[in-house]
Each structure stands twice: as C-alpha cells, then as structure tokens.
C-alpha cells in the first residue's frame, strides 16, 4: 500500500506544482501586486506579533506624556516612536494592535459576505425563475443604497459596536458576491459535465455545491480580496462616525474619531491612523488586482 501511495504522490505533484508556478508567473508579472503582497505580509506579521513588538500596552495612559510629537520632532521622546495621543497612549502600539482589529474585521466580514453571497447566488443561478427574480431584486434594492449609509442605518438599528458593524458591512457587501456567483453558476450550469453529473444521479445540492461551485471560484476569490479592503475601510468609517468599535478599542477609525479635535494642534494623532488605513487598503487592492490577473482567465492577457 505504501508503495502505491508514494507513486500516486509523484503523479499529482507535477500538475499542482505547474499550476502554482503558472499562478506565480502571472501574479509576479504585476509589480504592484508583489509590493501589495509584501506590505500585506508585513501587516499580518505586525498584527500577530503586536504583543511582542509593541513597547507599550495599547490602553496604557502615560500622564506625563500627553500629545507628545513623534520621536524625530523637537519635543519627541524615543520611547514613543510615533508620539502619543490626548490621554498619553502610545500611537505606535495602538496602531499595531489596530492592525489586529482591521485584519480580523476584514476576515470575518469577507467570510460572512462570501459564504452568504455564495449560498444565495448559487440558489438564484441554479434554480432561476421566480426565485432568481426575487433574490436579484432584493440585491438590487440593497445595491441601490449608498453602501456606507445602509451600513450606518443597520448599525443604528442593531446598536453600535464592532460585532454589529461587521454584520452590517457583510450585509452591504454581500450583493456583489451574489451577483458574481449567480452569473458564474448560470454560465456553468448548462455545461455538459453538469449534465453528466445529473446522469450519474447527483441531486440538486450535490450539483450546486460539489459540481458547479468549484468551477466558479476564481472571480469570487478576486472579489473577496477587494471586499477585504472595503470591509476595513467601511469599518474604519463606521468607527470614525462612532458606530463601530467603541473607545478605548485601538481601532483605526475610532482612533481617528478621538483625534478629530486635535487635527490643528497635533498632526500626528490623525495622520498615522489615516496612513495605516490608506496603506493597508492600497496594499490589499494592489494584491487583488494581481490575483485577478492570475486567476481570472477572462481577464488574462495572453
């Protein structure tokens, strides 16, 4: 038995390695995508290692160091690399912990929107008819609202807080997944391999999720990366408006909101959280573009 499995492994490997190297070839052709990936990896490392590399606890208030400028400014202190905020908390430490929140928000919101969107989209695309019409009109209604406004209304109804904000953003992002999934399923469901699975006796569930869905994943993965950055951005916006994470959570949007009144007096309290959001979103978007080039054959330059 051991011999046969070993032989089988040898057979699998070339194809998988080849597909991976082909993927990397298309991905690495896009320099922006590689830069985005590097920044994203650094970000993930910073978030994961935050407890080890931050010089201070994120909520620790140093009363002797209120609104200190960054270390390289005239009054700056080396202990507070990016300065401190109005209650004496170290901005650098808070930013690193904020990365945890942002990535967590991105992952959870994207997963929620992706899973919900896939299930609803596959059902709409597979069954068609009135089910499809009903679902798609509902999605059109959601899409008709400015996304942030709708998220704001939802949070207002559910009550402010990070969890509710994530649910609201997932709901707002979901229609994009529904539409993509539906379109891909409709294109795939008439292919002959689906008919073949039906002849094999496969039921609707198996056809939808085992046969058709795996062939629809490429555009969904691309959309997921782009939604990831959207989720971070929307969560920061909700935080800024006081509807997302609540103080003293070191969430980037919330940090911005707290710093609002010091914009003129202490530029660093708004600049660094803002830059963090900008860089993160930009990096993920660049990465998403590269993924699209590498994964979506329709857009592949040949």
């Amino acid at each position, binding site marked *: 038995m051991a011999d046969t499995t070993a*032989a*089988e492994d040898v*057979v*699998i490997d070339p*194809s998988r390695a080849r597909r991976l190297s082909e993927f990397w070839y298309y991905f690495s052709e896009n320099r922006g995508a590689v830069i985005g990936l590097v920044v994203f990896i650094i970000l993930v490392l910073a978030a994961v290692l935050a407890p080890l590399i931050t010089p201070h606890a994120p909520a620790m208030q140093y009363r002797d160091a209120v609104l200190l400028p960054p270390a390289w400014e005239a009054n700056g202190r080396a202990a507070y690399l990016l300065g401190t905020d109005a209650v004496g908390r170290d901005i650098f430490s808070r930013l690193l912990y904020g990365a945890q929140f942002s990535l967590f928000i991105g992952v959870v919101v994207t997963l929620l929107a992706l899973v919900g969107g896939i299930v609803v989209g596959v059902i709409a695309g597979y069954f068609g008819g009135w089910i499809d019409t009903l679902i798609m009109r509902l999605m059109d209604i959601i899409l008709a609202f400015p996304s942030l406004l709708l998220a704001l209304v939802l949070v207002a109804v559910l009550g402010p807080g990070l969890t509710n904000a994530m649910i609201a953003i997932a709901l707002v992002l979901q229609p994009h997944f529904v539409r993509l999934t539906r379109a891909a399923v409709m294109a795939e469901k008439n*292919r*002959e*391999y689906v*008919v*073949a*699975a*039906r*002849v*094999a*006796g*496969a*039921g609707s569930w*198996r056809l939808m999720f085992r*046969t058709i869905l*795996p*062939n629809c994943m490429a555009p969904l993965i691309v959309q997921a990366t782009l939604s990831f950055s959207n989720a971070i951005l929307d969560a920061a916006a909700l935080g800024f408006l006081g509807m997302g994470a609540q103080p003293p959570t070191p969430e980037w949007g919330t940090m911005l909101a707290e710093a609002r009144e010091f914009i003129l007096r202490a530029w660093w309290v708004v600049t660094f959280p803002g830059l963090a959001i900008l860089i993160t979103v930009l990096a993920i978007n660049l990465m998403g573009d590269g993924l699209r080039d590498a994964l979506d054959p329709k857009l592949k330059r040949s």
Partner: protein
Amino acid sequence: MSTLAHTSSEAPLLSVKNLETYFPLSHGTVRAVDGVSFEVRRGTIVGLVGESGSGKTTLGRSILRLVEPTGGEARFEDKDLLTLSPREMRAYRRRLQIIFQDPYSSLNPRMRVGAILAEALDTHGLAKGSARAPRIAELLTRVGLSPEHAKRFPHEFSGGQRQRIGIARALAVEPELIVADEPVSALDVSVQAQILNLMQELQKEFGLTMLFVAHDLSVVEYLCDEVVVMYLGRIMERGPSAQVYSRPRHPYTKALLATAPIPDPTVKRERIILKGDIPSPLDPPSGCVFRTRCPYAAPICAENRPPDEAVGLDHFVACVRKDELATSGEL
C-alpha cells in the same frame, strides 16, 4: 396495424412511441422531436442519423429526461420513463447512461478522473469503501487507460483519452442502455476508429444496448445493427443497417448515403444532391417535412403527414410515393 405485423417477437428494451419534444419560444414553437416511434432491442446498437438540426441529439436526451419531452412515451422494459417522478428517475439513472459528444466540456475540470468516475458510484451506493479503488482501476484499464490516471485532472489528457474517460464513466454503474451522443465527432479521424473499436468491444463484452447518435453514416454502418434516419424531428426511414444501406427506400436516406464518400473512385453512383438548408423547425412544411428538398416531391406530399409503413422485416419508411418510386426504378 401494419407496424405491428412486421416487428420481431422479442420484447424491446426501449420502445419509444410518438415522442414529442417542443420548445416554446416567444414567436412560435420549435418541434425538435415531432412524433417519433422506434424500438431498441436488448443487445443491439441502433444508429440515429440525420443532419444537424434534425433533432437526433434532442431525441437521445429526451429519452434520458435531460430535456423534458412534451408528449408521447418512452417505455424502458415495461416502465414509461416519461411518467416517472424526479426521485424515481434518479433510480433509473443507473440503468441509462450517456456518452457525450464533446470530451472537453463533459468532464468536470476541477475533479480528478477518479472522482469523476466515483461520482456515479457514490450516488448509487456502488463499490463502497475498499472496493472503490480497484473498481476505478478496473474501469480505467478496461477503456485502455492506466489505473494511475485516476489521480490526474482532465486537462492532462488528449481528446481521445478524455472520451475514454467518458466511456468509463458511463460504464461505471453497469447500465443497460447507453445513449452515445456523437461520441466521435469531436475527435481526430485516427482516434475516431480507436474509440469506435473500443465501443464495439465493450458492447460485445457487456452485451450493452446502445442508441448511437451520429451524423456520419459510414460510422453507423460499421457499428450498428439498425438505423433510424431522422429529418426535422421526424423519422424518415428505419430498419436493419444492411437493408437500409443496400437499398434505401426513402429519398432522404438515399441523399444522405450519396454524401458519404466511397473509397473506390471507379464506382459510379447516382447522386441525389440536396439543395438548400433544412427548413426552420418553427415552421415546418405541411405533409412530408422533406418535400421542400425532395427531388421526387409531388403535390400529394404536401397533403398529409406520411405514415410509417413497413417495406420489409423491421424496415419502415415514411414516404407516400415509396411504392411508386420503387416500381419506376428511381429508388
């Protein structure tokens, strides 16, 4: 009924009666299959031939209920397949299989060959657990592939190899009837012969019954015991291959045979050259649907739909002028 008097006594495995498959469109109805009756006896291969658009593929798929027929019946042994509920039909799927025309689109690109073959076994609960791998290896070996191929993806195979996988998939559940939907027309000529030989071997070995859809008459002659000739959703002529090929009794069959090349340049034959295209199935000609392209068309042809009439044992022709043409020596 003359149709009954001339059929052999053995009960057919599949008996199709007045099968109709209509597709409603916004501006009319396409009669893809329009009242078709024929029989397939156990252990035989029946060829279904016709031009593109004659409804032969739709007919094959209607029998398997991959396309829902509008009317008529398709009796499999003694059960009318068209009256089965979807749940009952799933049980029958094991006994009825299909081989597809395009081996590129008929294999799921995200599944390994082993998983493709296992799909049917899974849904019917066959060859479970430790019996699974040997069964898949056996199937692959039987169609001329190697057991290691089970671990590969479809894109790693050539067209001919993919069609072999398609055949193995159809055989996996040990079906009684296989509908082969132009299984070789997407392949290179050299590969076509290999696949046809394989199908013939397998048919003999397993005593399969097959409905072989093709637009190439020479392929059908080589493989089939009986031929059904379709035109615009209707059967023009059907009968044992030997008879139909040596003496076609319908002008359409004769025209089709004339298009098939003969490898001997010294043989001269009279040709019927068909002019124009197949008429729109949205608005088929009255009476005999072939009359607009038939060189022997007469006013009588436009009046009524010609009935299937026996001209020999199991040999039926739908042409009102067949006797006239036979005596005048034109057919």
